[in-house]
């Protein structure tokens, strides 16, 4: 009896988890689904078709992906040496560095965006993809650094020393020892950066100033008064990359799930 209840509760939990996806599919691939029909009456791929030929949606997809990929790579490049220092070394000002990194994770994007809005207008970065990338780095960098430095804290430098003693060159050591041991954490860190950038709305809006269009911007506009089919398709396109990414990295993620805090 207790088992049945447990299965039932678990079933409900999983149902809630996939319900949004089913809902978007139902709305996105149906047409003339009027109140009060409980289920879609007529299925179609025309909305989907239209979205794939719609230049705004395509631009949104392309720019959003470009930005998210560049942001993830840059975060990784910048975070790697920083995390190594934070994870392995004790140095003066380490506490302060932590605090400085903690700041952007709690300062709301609203305030960051408003501040950068004026600054970037002066620098001529407003409305450019590069400007948006810089803006996104503010929330992504702390998370990549936190994730990588907690991995470096468990990392044993003696492996590198040993390789050195055995005559490996610094380049060989980096690629064959350091990078290889860090791979799982690197995957998770990149994933976090990608997700945070991909789903960013306010920073893109405030820095992009309506010139840089990403999917969240389109979805937000549709959600405040578009037709349900469009909303369904755009939501599907929007969650597709995260869903794929999470499905592929599920194993690493379960170990680091607590690291990703609120930004996302």
């Amino acid at each position: 009896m207790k088992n049945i209840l447990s299965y039932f509760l678990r079933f409900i939990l999983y149902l809630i988890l996939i319900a949004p996806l089913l809902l978007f599919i139902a709305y996105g691939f149906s047409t003339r689904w009027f109140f009060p029909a409980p289920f879609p009456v007529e299925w179609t791929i025309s909305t989907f078709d239209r979205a794939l030929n719609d230049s705004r949606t395509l631009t949104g997809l392309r720019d959003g992906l470009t930005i998210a990929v560049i942001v993830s790579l840059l975060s990784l490049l910048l975070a790697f040496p920083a995390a190594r220092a934070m994870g392995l070394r004790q140095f003066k000002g380490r506490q302060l560095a932590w605090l400085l990194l903690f700041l952007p994770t709690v300062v709301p994007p609203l305030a960051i965006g408003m501040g950068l809005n004026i600054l970037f207008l002066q620098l001529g970065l407003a409305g450019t993809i590069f400007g948006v990338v810089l803006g996104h780095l503010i929330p992504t960098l702390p998370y990549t650094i936190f994730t990588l430095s907690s991995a470096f804290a468990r990392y044993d430098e003696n492996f590198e020393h040993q390789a050195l003693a055995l005559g490996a060159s610094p380049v060989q050591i980096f690629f064959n020892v350091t990078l290889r041991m860090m791979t799982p954490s690197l995957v998770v860190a990149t994933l976090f950066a990608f997700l945070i950038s991909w789903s960013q709305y306010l920073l893109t809006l405030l820095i992009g100033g309506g010139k840089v269009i990403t999917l969240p911007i389109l979805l937000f506009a549709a959600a405040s008064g578009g037709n349900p089919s469009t909303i369904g398709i755009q939501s599907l396109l929007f969650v597709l990359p995260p869903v794929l990414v999470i499905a592929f990295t599920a194993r690493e993620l379960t170990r680091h799930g607590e690291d990703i805090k609120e930004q996302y």
Partner: protein
Amino acid sequence: MLGASLLYAIAESLGFISVIGQSDVSFRAYRAALAADSEFWVSLAFSLWVSVTATLLASTFALLVAVWLNNHRTQSDTLALNWNLAFPHLVFATALLLFLSQSGLFARWAASFGLITSTDQFPVLVRDRYGIGIILHYIGKEIPFLALIVLAVLRSQPIGYDVVAQNLGANRWQRLRHITIPQVAPALLSGSLLVFGFIFSSYEVPAVLGIGYPRALPVLALRFFLDPDLRARSEGMVLSLIITAIVMLVAMVSLKFGEKKE
């Protein structure tokens, strides 16, 4: 490392400098924004109501979910909780809108069961006066987040206390009250404060699931900020600084609790 944190300091400080540059013109903006009859107070009350209610409910449910999952351990459940990450807030809010609006999926089901006959008989659950939609959204979104935090603590605790208490005749509720809750309280409190700060300062969800009046503080701030009238713009800045100050304060308290645990 130095480079990265410097980059931050610069970006951050420059951001703040331009804010201050704005504010020497805008002591008037402070007065205007904080005037007794300004919409600020309504929005502040609304935001506080939504954030506090959602945080309290989410923490309570998260505690129950975590305790339940801890008693039935499997790897896949942690995975399931992480699945939540696949849905950005904006998407989750959109889903809620399609489920709960007066012509949404649940209203259709209610109608086909004959519970209601027209759309206006379905209760207003999203875009409502009391922020119910926004609260529901955050309960759904933050339960997994908080449950993972609680689970992490529970799994690091020896099971002994619970067993001893059970042997001494403590019932389920007593064990929860006197053993589990004290164990997880610091972490849960620290997490809840972060959640509160996040809800209080986020824009998308109240913008999608809220209505024109009363509106959440961040929504009001952005509305002012994007106003063509430049005086309103500095009022938006003032509001955003107030939001930031409140969130920072809460985050600092949260950090204190988080440290105590270690």
